[in-house]
C-alpha cells in the first residue's frame, strides 16, 4: 500500500480498525480527541460499535463487557482519563480478557496541561490499578510505529488474554508523518472458547475477577504471573542505533527516544561514540539486552519526558554494571536535541560520575541551573 500523510491519533484509530476492532468506547480528551473522532466517523459506517461513553469510568467498563464476548475491543484516553480507568483495568486483568488501550499522555499531575509528556510510565508499566498484574506496554516513536504497534497490541492482547497498551505522548498523537496502513483484516469469525456469548448448545460460561477463596485467587495470580513470565521471555522488542561501537549509550522511548536520536547523530558527527537504545516494549522491559550493553558501554544516559520513571527500570536491569545518568524534562516540556547532546558531551568529557550519588538528584540540580540560565 502507498504511504499516506497521517496524524498519529488518526493513524492509531485507523490501524485499530484495520486490525479488526469491533467495538470502541471512549470519552473526549486532548490530545487524543482526533482518535475518538476518527472512530466516531468510521466505526458506524463499517457497521461496528462506537459509543461515546459518559465518562472514562463507563468507557473502560463498556470495553470490559465487549471484551468478555471475545470480540476486539478498545478504548483510548489521555492521562487524567486513564487514571479513571484503573479499577476497570484491574478487573479486566483479573478476568483475563484481552483489550487494547491507547494513552496519549499529557502533562501532569492533576489537570496539568495538554502538552506531550511521558509521566504515565510507571502508572502504565507497573500497573496503576490494585493487585498484581502486568499489562503489555508498547511505546511508538513515530506514526508508522504507532500503526504497527496498535496492530501488534491487538494480537498480543488476544494471544495472552491480557491488556495491551499503546503508550504514546501528545506529540506522537498530534504529529503527521508519511506512513503505511495495513490492509483491512477480516473480522474474526470464531470467538474464543472462553467468550461469554449467550449461545445455545453448550455449558454456560462465566467471566469474573472474584475469587473469594484466597487459595483460588492465588492460583489465578500464579496463572497470571506465569503468563507474564512467558511474555517476558517472548515479546521483548527494542530498536538499536549506532550501538556497534558505542561507548555512550542513550536510552529513551517514544518521543524522547526520537529526540535523542537527533542528539546521537549530532554527537557522532562531532566524533563521539554515542548510540541509542530505544525500548519498544516498555513492558516487558528489555532487561537482559540492556544488561548486555551495560557490560561494554562506558556510561548510559536515560532520557525521558518525566522525572526518571524508566530510569529505575534501567538501573534494575544493569545492576550497577555501568554508570547511569539521567536527563529529563517535565510537565509537558519536550527536550530539544541540543539539550541531550550537551548531556552526551558532558558524560563523554568525563569523569564518569560517582554512582553513589543519585542520578536523579544530580540531574535535578543541573535542570534547575539550566532553567535559571535560560531565564536570564
Amino acid at each position: 500500500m502507498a504511504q499516506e500523510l497521517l496524524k498519529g491519533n488518526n493513524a492509531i484509530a485507523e490501524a485499530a480498525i484495520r486490525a479488526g476492532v469491533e467495538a470502541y468506547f471512549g470519552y473526549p480528551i486532548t490530545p487524543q480527541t482526533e482518535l475518538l473522532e476518527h472512530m466516531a466517523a468510521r466505526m458506524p459506517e463499517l457497521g461496528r460499535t462506537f459509543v461515546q461513553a459518559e465518562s472514562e469510568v463507563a468507557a473502560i467498563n463498556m470495553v470490559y463487557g465487549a471484551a468478555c464476548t471475545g470480540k476486539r475491543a478498545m478504548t483510548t484516553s489521555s492521562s487524567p482519563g486513564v487514571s479513571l480507568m484503573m479499577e476497570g483495568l484491574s478487573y479486566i486483568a483479573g478476568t483475563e480478557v484481552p483489550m487494547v488501550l491507547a494513552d496519549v499522555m499529557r502533562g501532569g499531575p492533576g489537570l496539568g496541561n495538554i502538552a506531550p509528556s511521558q509521566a504515565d510510565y510507571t502508572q502504565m508499566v507497573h500497573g496503576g490499578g490494585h493487585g498484581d498484574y502486568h499489562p503489555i506496554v508498547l511505546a511508538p516513536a513515530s506514526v508508522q510505529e504507532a500503526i504497527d504497534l496498535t496492530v501488534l497490541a491487538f494480537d498480543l492482547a488476544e494471544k495472552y488474554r491480557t491488556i495491551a497498551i499503546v503508550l504514546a505522548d501528545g506529540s506522537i498523537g498530534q504529529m503527521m508523518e508519511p506512513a503505511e496502513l495495513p490492509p483491512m483484516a477480516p473480522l474474526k469469525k470464531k470467538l474464543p472458547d472462553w467468550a461469554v456469548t449467550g449461545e445455545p448448545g453448550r455449558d454456560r460460561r462465566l467471566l469474573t475477577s472474584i475469587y473469594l477463596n484466597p487459595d483460588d485467587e492465588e492460583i489465578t495470580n500464579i496463572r497470571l504471573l506465569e503468563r507474564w513470565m512467558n511474555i517476558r521471555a517472548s515479546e521483548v522488542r527494542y530498536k538499536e542505533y549506532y550501538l556497534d561501537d558505542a561507548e555512550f549509550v542513550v536510552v529513551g522511548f517514544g518521543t524522547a527516544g526520537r529526540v535523542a536520536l537527533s542528539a546521537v547523530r549530532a554527537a557522532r558527527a562531532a566524533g563521539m561514540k554515542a548510540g541509542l537504545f530505544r525500548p519498544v516494549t516498555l513492558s516487558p522491559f528489555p532487561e537482559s539486552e540492556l544488561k548486555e550493553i551495560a557490560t561494554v558501554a562506558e556510561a548510559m544516559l536515560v532520557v525521558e519526558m518525566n522525572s526518571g520513571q524508566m530510569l529505575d527500570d534501567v538501573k534494575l536491569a544493569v545492576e550497577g554494571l555501568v554508570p547511569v545518568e539521567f536527563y529529563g524534562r517535565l510537565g509537558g516540556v519536550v527536550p530539544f536535541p541540543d539539550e541531550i547532546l550537551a548531556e552526551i558531551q558532558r558524560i563523554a568529557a568525563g569523569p564518569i560520575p560517582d554512582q553513589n550519588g543519585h542520578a536523579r538528584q544530580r540531574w535535578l540540580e543541573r535542570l534547575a541551573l539550566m532553567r535559571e540560565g535560560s531565564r536570564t
Partner: protein
Amino acid sequence: MTSSTPAGQVVYQRPRSLTATVTHYCPGCTHGISQRLVAEVLDEMGLREKAIGVASVGCSVFAYNYFDVDFVEAAHGRAPAMATGIKRVFPDRTVFTYQGDGDLASIGMAEVMHAAARGENITIIFINNAIYGMTGGQMAPTTLPGMRTTSTPLGRDIEMTGMPIRMSEVLAKLDGSSFVVRRSLHDATNIRKAKKAIRTAFEVQQQGLGFSLVELLSTCPTNWGLTPNEALGFVEKQMIPYFPLGDYKVSDAVKALKV
C-alpha cells in the same frame, strides 16, 4: 391413556434457568425470590441459552453461580456500562443486569442514568432493600429517614444526608427509558405482579423497545435486625409508603405490547 389412578401434576418446580447451587443468601432474604422470578421468565421465554447476565457487587455478587446462564461480573456500580458493551456487540442477545441499591443508586448512578438516557436496549433488575447488605448494613441512598444502619448509628439524619432517592421516578424522567416500574416482593400477590413486570421488561428488550428496569422492594432481615417475616412487614408498612408501587414509565410502544 385412560387411567383412573390419581396422578401428580407438577404445579410448581424449580426453574431450569437456576443451577442447583445453594445460595449464600441469609435465610428469608428476598434476593432469592427475585432471582427465581428472573429464572422463571427466562424459562418461559426460552431465553436461557441466549441471555447474558451481568452480576453486580453486593449480596447478589454470586448471582452468576445461581443462574444457569452465561454471566459476567461487573465492577461495583458499572453493570449498566458493562451490559452496554455486551449488548452493542451482540444486539440479538438478551442482556440483563441484577443490581442492588447501593450499586445502582449510589456508586452506579451515572452509569444507570446514561444507559437509560441512551435508551440502551437492556433490562435492569434493581433490588431496593434500603441498605448495603453485603458490607454489613451501611446506609444506602434508599435508606429510610431515621433508619438505623451501621453508618447512621443514630438513625438516618435527613438534614445531613438528604431524603432517600426514588430511582424509578428519576429514571422515568429520561426520554430514553421505555419501561420503568416498581414492584414489591413482600407477599405472593405482589410477587406475581413482580414477575409479570419482569416478563414485560424482557419482552420490551426482545422487541427492541429500549431501556427497561424493574425496581423490586426487597428485604434484608440480617441487617434490618428483623426475622424474615417481620422484614416483609417492614417492606409493606415502611418502604411502600415512601417508595410507592406503580408504573413510572410505560412508553407508547410498550403499552402496545401484549404480554
